[in-house]
């Protein structure tokens, strides 16, 4: 059995939260650099240049890449061979939220979390959304996506007809991106969840966005849909050009004979995610 203390988890989550807000994953930076060199539209290209400069400044000056430091969504993968000592906290969820609060304060993240009805601010950037997944034996991994809401607002879910087929799914994805237009801070990342139930499709789309369980059977299809999206001409910032989306990722799960749930989760270019194994 592997034992993990609550102080270790708090320290890990706190660091993950502050680091994720100011350092983008290498793959995100690489895709942005590539698009900067490929973009012909002058305004889009200028914006991509400023984006790259912004990324450097955030790292160097230790400030968040974007003032919308997002809603923290965690995926926790724990195997049966791991015991977490939650100490004074009633549950692992509380331990992770404590790490989130400390990391938000230390990293100067914005308090962007409110009660959904009376809109009063929780004043500590918590709680996060925490999904628990079954891991292998002694596996313990915490993944975080700091989800900006300008792009979250443009995401969509549709319960499609079971006979809609790949064409129908493709239409829905492209329409969702077209409707999003300039609003989600393109160039965007697109996570697509296909199948399961209403909530499963949404969860798949978020996990696809973070590249957690991408279905290798659909690599060609992903490329084709990405190409269609980049043919829309929205461009970086909505200024026109060929850089509308940087990547598209599909995750699937078997579904019911009567249905075809499809969820499209959009991230801005500042796709802040990371994970830590303990």
């Amino acid at each position, binding site marked *: 059995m592997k034992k993990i203390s609550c102080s270790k988890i708090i320290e890990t989550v706190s660091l993950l939260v502050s680091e994720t807000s100011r350092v983008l994953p290498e793959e995100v930076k690489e895709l942005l650099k590539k698009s900067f060199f490929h973009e012909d539209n002058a305004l889009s290209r200028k914006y991509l240049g400023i984006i790259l400069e912004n990324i450097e400044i955030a790292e160097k000056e230790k400030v968040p890449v974007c003032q919308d*430091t997002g809603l923290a969504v965690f995926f926790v993968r724990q195997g049966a061979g791991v015991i977490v000592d939650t100490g004074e906290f009633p549950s692992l969820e509380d331990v992770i939220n404590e790490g989130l609060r400390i990391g938000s304060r230390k990293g*100067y993240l914005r308090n962007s979390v409110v009660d959904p009805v009376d809109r009063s601010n929780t004043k500590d950037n918590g709680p996060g959304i925490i999904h628990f997944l079954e891991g292998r034996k002694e596996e313990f991994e915490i993944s975080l996506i700091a989800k900006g809401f300008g792009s979250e607002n443009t995401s969509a879910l549709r319960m499609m007809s079971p006979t809609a087929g790949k064409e129908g799914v493709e239409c829905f994805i492209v329409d969702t991106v077209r409707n999003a237009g300039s609003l989600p801070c393109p160039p965007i990342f697109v996570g697509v969840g296909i199948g399961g139930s209403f909530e499963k499709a949404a969860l798949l789309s978020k996990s696809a966005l973070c590249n957690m369980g991408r279905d290798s059977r659909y690599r060609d299809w992903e490329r084709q849909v990405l190409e269609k999206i980049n043919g829309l001409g929205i461009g970086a910032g909505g200024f026109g050009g060929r850089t509308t989306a940087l990547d598209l990722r599909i995750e699937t799960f078997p579904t019911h004979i009567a249905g075809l749930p499809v969820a499209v989760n959009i991230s801005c270019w500042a796709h802040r995610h990371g994970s830590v194994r303990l």
Partner: protein
Amino acid sequence: MKRNIIFPVKNYKFEDLAAGDEVTISGSIYVARDAAHKNLVRAIEEGEKLPVQIEGGLIYYMGPSPAPEGQIIGSCGPTTSSRMDRYTLPLLELGLKATMGKGGRDSEVASACRKFGAIYLVTYGGCGAYLRKFVKKSEVIAYPELGPEAVYKLDVKDFPALVGIDIKGNNLYNK
């Protein structure tokens, strides 16, 4: 040559600006986003005095991240402007001359810009770390209880932007 606009504007009518032009912003501007707009427009509807002097002014749609120790401001890039579309007309009616954020807006905002001789400016989404260097002073001036959604007054110098909607109602995003 980029036009540098100093806010609040007095006699300048934006006549030389067209959608897509690059400009810079200097002077004193206000910051407000969703919750503050709801408060401002409610105050107008109820005939109350506004906590800000908006005549000739610019409202920047933004909610900054906290300033690290000894610094002026945290990350301070634009938020999605279209959420403020429904609150824009009553403010333009009172003499607000410019708004700034990111992304396209309703055609009603474009019509209102034409009617009131106002402009909509666009700045670089997600680039709050870059944009902070153009902010010289920052203070909360209304609704402090809203935390990151409070109304701020910023002193800016050469803050970069593009004309999103000009006074003829032309829209950068419809080009």
